């Protein structure tokens, strides 16, 4: 007979997510947005592209679809989908009054924190990968599984482009992980799901706002919002690793303190309610 572990919490947190509406709301949005996007391309009368990366390729290769969604999803869609679970995962225990129930079993608070954090991260990874996969499939049905033109102007074969799409999704997970950390912190501190979800989204939008304020352009490379574009380095020939490396340490700069603060709050908090 063995004792419980972080893995026990992780598995049960995933089980609990399966029973909660917000999980399906988030994953449903991640699924349906690419389909709506492709439908919009299909029914658009003006076949010319917009003035953003890969715009002109939307009707020529379905592989441009996930990349364009990554571009626009950074503003609020992906932060919101991520925050739906990360912002709720501790606060829902307060809402249900169940912290006292799980804190009086055989698990240390640190184990519970780790299991929950991993579950929130897993959900975020699932949302991004589902979104990307649906976008690839729907885009390919609409515009074909064709080669892409890189941001440097070179033509990249369809299989290589598919590989780059998935690596881009992985790079995109770097700032998403930071959003998870911020969501966990607000969930732990506010003990209120709605406040934590909206708060996480507000933090994300605040970074976007700082990025467009005149006079703050020097800050731009160090803003969280900028790191959502790091994947574009992969779409250059040769690959530009600089934005990706910067994304890793800038996101760590925001994410690690947020995660550490969430951990300490969770570890030391009094459970006076419920």
């Amino acid at each position, binding site marked *: 007979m*063995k004792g419980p572990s972080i893995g026990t919490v992780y598995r049960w947190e995933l089980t*609990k997510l399966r*029973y909660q509406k917000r999980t399906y709301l988030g994953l449903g949005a991640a699924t349906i947005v690419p389909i709506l996007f492709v439908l919009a391309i299909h029914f658009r009368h003006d076949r010319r592209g917009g003035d953003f990366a890969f715009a002109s390729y939307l009707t020529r290769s379905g592989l441009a679809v996930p990349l364009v969604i990554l571009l626009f999803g950074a503003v609020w869609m992906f932060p919101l989908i991520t925050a739906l679970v990360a912002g709720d995962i501790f606060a829902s225990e307060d809402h*249900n009054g169940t912290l006292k129930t*799980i804190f009086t079993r*055989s*698990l240390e608070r640190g184990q519970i924190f780790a299991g929950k954090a991993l579950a929130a991260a897993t959900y975020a990874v699932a949302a991004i990968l589902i979104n990307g996969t649906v976008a690839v499939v729907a885009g390919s049905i609409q515009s074909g599984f064709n080669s892409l033109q890189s941001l440097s102007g070179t033509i990249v074969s369809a299989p290589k482009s598919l590989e780059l799409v998935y690596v881009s999704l992985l790079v995109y997970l770097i700032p998403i992980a930071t959003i998870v950390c911020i969501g966990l912190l607000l969930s732990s501190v506010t003990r209120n799901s709605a406040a934590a979800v909206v708060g996480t989204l507000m933090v994300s939008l605040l970074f976007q706002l700082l990025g467009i304020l005149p006079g703050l352009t020097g800050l731009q490379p160090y803003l969280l919002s900028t790191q959502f574009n790091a994947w574009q380095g992969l779409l250059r020939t040769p690959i530009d690793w600089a934005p990706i490396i910067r994304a890793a340490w800038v996101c760590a700069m925001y994410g690690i303190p947020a995660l550490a603060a969430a951990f300490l709050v969770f570890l030391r908090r009094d459970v006076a309610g*419920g």
Partner: protein
Amino acid sequence: MTDAPPVEVRGLVKRYGDLTAVAGVDLTVDTGDVYGYLGPNGAGKTTSLRMMLGLIRPSAGSVRLFGRDPLLSVRALDGVAGFVEAPTFYPYLTGRRNLELLAAYDGFGAASRLDEALDTVELADRASDRVGGYSHGMKQRLGIAAALLRDPKLMVLDEPATGLDPAGMRDMRLLIRRLADQGITVVLSSHLLAEVEELCNRVAIVRSGKIVYEGAIAELKRSAGTTYRLSTTDDERALAVCRAQRGIRDVRMQHARIGFAADEGAVAELSQALIEAGTLIRMLAPQTVTLEDLFFSLTEGVDGDHAGVGEPQPLEAAR
């Protein structure tokens, strides 16, 4: 498990800013006790219980469960189970799923006790329903089942009968009695003083965050002395005799009877004194002192007045 007592609390204090919720609680629960933890609302009972289970950090003082500090490690809760205030569960999961989750969080074979725990609280039939649809009583019973998963040596139950109908309260009482008979030490916080009196051998009574009595119920009753009611052929003269008699306390007229407190020896001397004064006794009857009487005498006095400790004030007079 060690030889250390199941619960040992020393100098426990909890402050929230200027408010002191618990002001220096000391108590010891010995193995096999069914220990009542009593006090009016806001006296600090639940805060104390939460500190005992490591849910709240004390501002000062210490808690040891079987000699271990629950703040240092959750291992201190090995063999300890129960709930504070109402037991809580995930409303979107079934009763069984909730218990499966808690059994997984307990580990060490807790899952093998799940069916037995459901049978014990007679919830097996409703185990596949979502907890969100459970009545209050069913949640209370599920709380007991969740506690039983841990194969506890000590159970901490905070108002387990609250919100139950009379049959539910009776069943809960029988269940606690059965647990105690199995050798489980029980700490029971309850407003139902008759229930505590029936189930518990020892109590702590808390008022304004402080323990005003801790010990055996029998000792508490003994220390309160016994009250008597007296009716004579001449109550006015009898009243004067009572007031003059050594060992007779708190003499007053009550519903056309004389009431007083005294021990047995003093009562024998009083009866002789009454006869010598030419007053014949029509009725002299001891009054049963209930835990409720003692509780009110200890908790409704002037705040900070500890006259009641070990020497409760006369009951009727204290009201």
